[in-house]
């Protein structure tokens, strides 16, 4: 925390980050000073001893053992100091506290799959509470990746066949980059995500909506299974309104008027979609009357209510496979019977495994 007062060019959001910034800055200062000194001497010599006449004689200086010993020892001692300081930080990096909350992360080409202790799962994002130690258990399904969060000044390789671990103590609420730092193939630069550091209560709320068995998460599965996502997607070519943050908002209706998107309106829209159509959209939604049980309806509504900005999955995303399971093949569990019966006629082409991975590069 020596240099804590210096304004940062890039966000820093973890307690270890301050230590690492300190050592980087200290190394910069010491090496910078050494560089400036030696360069100054070098340039001074170049200027002072430039050849003034072709007849110049130079003294025969062969060296000096004393000087050699001095300038071997001094750098060595400085290096030792930095080495010892570095060990301290590295030790902290590798030893999470016992009470840390454990989150499992699996890298695969080319995405990060995150599993929380209560069963919440997410892809390419990591929601964590602020001011609480977070331990990451990391592995990879295929090749070597590296789970790096620059704002935490932290990274560690995801090595297949091993579980690596690291930890953070996030100190600032915010959204920061997750980068894959170890080259892993075509989609390496697309293997990025966001870490959301939230207040404890926001995290709990998020967690509730995403926990295994929670109404919202069950509803999410149905939302995908019933192919709602085919039209209510975040894609540019979507054929129906994006439902993020729609709950309790005013919805303008075709033919004038508006309605508050409360539980009953959402319910009505699923069962009798053509009754009140959102302004600006084609009335093409099929009715799900008789195809969704009341229990399921509650779950879907809970999911829609829980949607926040950016929560709607991309259209091609399917069920999460169980973490650690062999992927590719199990990725697409297309619910055949359901799809055939209940999916809208103009349903998009079946998702293929290839599509289900985020496209690499661009």
């Amino acid at each position: 925390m020596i240099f804590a007062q210096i304004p940062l060019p890039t966000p820093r959001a973890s307690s270890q980050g301050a230590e690492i910034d300190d050592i980087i800055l200290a190394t910069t200062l010491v090496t910078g000073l050494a560089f400036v000194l030696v360069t100054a001497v070098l340039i001074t010599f170049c200027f002072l001893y430039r050849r003034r006449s072709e007849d110049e004689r130079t003294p025969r200086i062969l060296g000096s053992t004393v000087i050699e010993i001095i300038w071997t020892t001094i750098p060595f001692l400085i290096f030792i100091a930095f080495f010892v300081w570095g060990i301290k930080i590295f030790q902290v990096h590798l030893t999470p506290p016992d009470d840390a909350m454990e989150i499992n992360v699996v890298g695969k080409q080319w995405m990060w799959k995150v599993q929380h202790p209560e069963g919440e799962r997410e892809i390419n994002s990591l929601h964590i509470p602020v001011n609480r130690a977070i331990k990451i258990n990391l592995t990879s399904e295929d090749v070597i990746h590296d789970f790096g969060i620059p704002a935490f000044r932290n990274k560690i390789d995801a090595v297949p066949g091993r579980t690596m671990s690291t930890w953070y103590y996030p100190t600032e609420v915010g959204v920061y980059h997750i980068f894959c730092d170890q080259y892993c193939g075509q989609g390496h630069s697309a293997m990025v995500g966001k870490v959301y550091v939230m207040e404890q209560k926001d995290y709990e709320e998020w967690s509730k909506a995403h926990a295994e068995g929670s109404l919202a998460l069950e509803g999410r599965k149905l939302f995908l299974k019933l192919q709602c996502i085919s039209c209510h997607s975040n894609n540019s070519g979507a054929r129906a309104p994006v439902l993020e943050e729609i709950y309790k908002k005013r919805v303008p209706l075709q033919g004038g008027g508006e309605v508050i998107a409360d539980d009953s309106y959402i319910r009505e829209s699923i069962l009798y979609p053509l009754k009140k159509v959102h302004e600006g959209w084609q009335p093409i939604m099929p009715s799900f009357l008789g195809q969704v049980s009341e229990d399921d309806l509650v779950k879907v509504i809970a999911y829609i209510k829980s949607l926040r900005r950016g929560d709607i999955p991309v259209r091609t995303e399917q069920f999460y496979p169980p973490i650690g399971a062999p992927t590719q093949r199990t990725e697409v569990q297309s619910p055949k019977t359901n799809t055939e019966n209940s999916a809208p006629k103009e349903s998009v082409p079946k998702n293929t495994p290839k599509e289900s991975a985020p496209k690499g590069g661009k």
Partner: protein
Amino acid sequence: MSLASVYLNRDYITQSAPAEPNAKASPNYLNHAYGWQSWLLTIDHKRIGLLYMLSVTGFFLIGMAAAGMVRYDLLKPSGMLEADIYNRMFSAHGIVMTFFFLIPAIPGIFGNFFIPLMVGARDLAFPKLNLASWYIYMIGGAFGIWAILNGGIDTGWTLYPPYSSKSAATNVAPVAVSIFITGFSSILTGLNIVVTVHRMRAPGMTWMRLPLFVWAIYATSLIQLLSTPVLAVTVVFLGVERLTGVGIFDPALQGDPVLFQHMFWFYSHPAVYIMILPAMGVINEVLTCFSRKNIFGYSAVVFSTLGIAFAGFIVWGHHMFLAGEGYYPALIFSFLSFFVAVPSAVKVFNWTATLYKGSITFSAPMIYAVGFIILFMIGGLTGLFLSNLGSDIHLHDTYFVVAHFHYVMVGGMVLGYFAGLHYWWPKITGRMYNEWWAKFSAITIMVGFSFTFLPQFYLGYLGMPRRYASYAPEFQDLNVLSSAGSTVLAVGYIMPLFYLIHSLFFGKIATSNPWGATGLEWQTPSPPSPHNFDKTPIVTCGPYEYSLTPEEAKAMAQAGGKH
């Protein structure tokens, strides 16, 4: 007689080089035989050196083109190229530059050409083996270029499995074969030079009278001999796993991916010193010559050279601090990495001290040499961030690393190579190049280089990872700056091609010793005769007696003076 002319004709090392300017009368190594056979079947170390120069230049231009594509892609955050193309480009750049340029360049060209001249021998110990090395290098190189042009490889030059052994659908096996072949060239050249230095030194050329360039190439050759076989084994293992599915590195086949990293870096870290030590050797020759001084602390420089060569073998694990090599290995490798920085620092101090009370001129080679010291210092000092277990956590695998090793490789090795090229060009070709253009290109290279790579240190600190075809928008400004710098750098690289070729036809005829240097190689005519020396030279003093006149040197030798 003015002292200047004494310097230009110093002849205190007993030997009978033809006096100027009758070099024309006796045939030199360039004009004593003609025809393609006289070149492609030559066993003259000087001609083989030129063969290396041609091929190394070719590979350099290919590597440069790939680098140009990389910098082009990074002009905008979403990337200008397909990710697939970008990945092939940075891989091609790394593989071509490392295996076909950085490693063979100075030992292949100047090592071949000047080691026999500097130790007072007629040729290398095994002239035919020497030619064979070049052919092996060309076969490996041609195979590599074929693999790169024919589909390419997208693993990066580090070839990490299981990506390379399982996942990559590109030419991994052919490139592995080409690296395997090229390795033999490296081993044989090393062997040749080690034997030459041990067995073929002229009378009086004791170990502690060897020019420091010879020491540097000798140390390099030892590293080549001892480490390259490990690379060969590694790529064979990789090829076997990829082609037959025998598990060595892939955990799905009971292998260990970190084992590959240990084996790969056991070669590739010493390889960094294969690249930089020869350049350091060149700098010793150039600095002493253009400041007319003895090197400060000859034995300190020799021992730091050997120290670097030795310590280079025991620091490979600093590439894997975060790859799961374990806590104690990380500790030890971090310590040793700091340790290896000491001899490099000692060298810089000795070079600086050499200039003290010198008589310094700034011919093109000297400008390159001073540039080398400054840029190499940045490269070396930024290495301390990465050998440190604390700061490496944040900087590992970011652009900081990219900038760091380019400062060592380009700011160090390439500038050292250009310093040597300009220093020895009159000896090799018998012609002087245009001094103004040479200085201009030196400055252009350094400016372009700094604009390219200084921003990358900062990018790395901000967190931009390596090998990204597309990146977060906030990194764009620095990337554009870096790409702009790289075009300046490219212009700087291309200029020598023109003025050096121009000098071959229109350059002033070079005297045998245009810089007034003391080395044995300058006691031969420019260009040297096919058999190097008319009479075996007898060496009576150390390599850098710039402050003595020939008479004084002779007198000192007779009195049994130091060195």
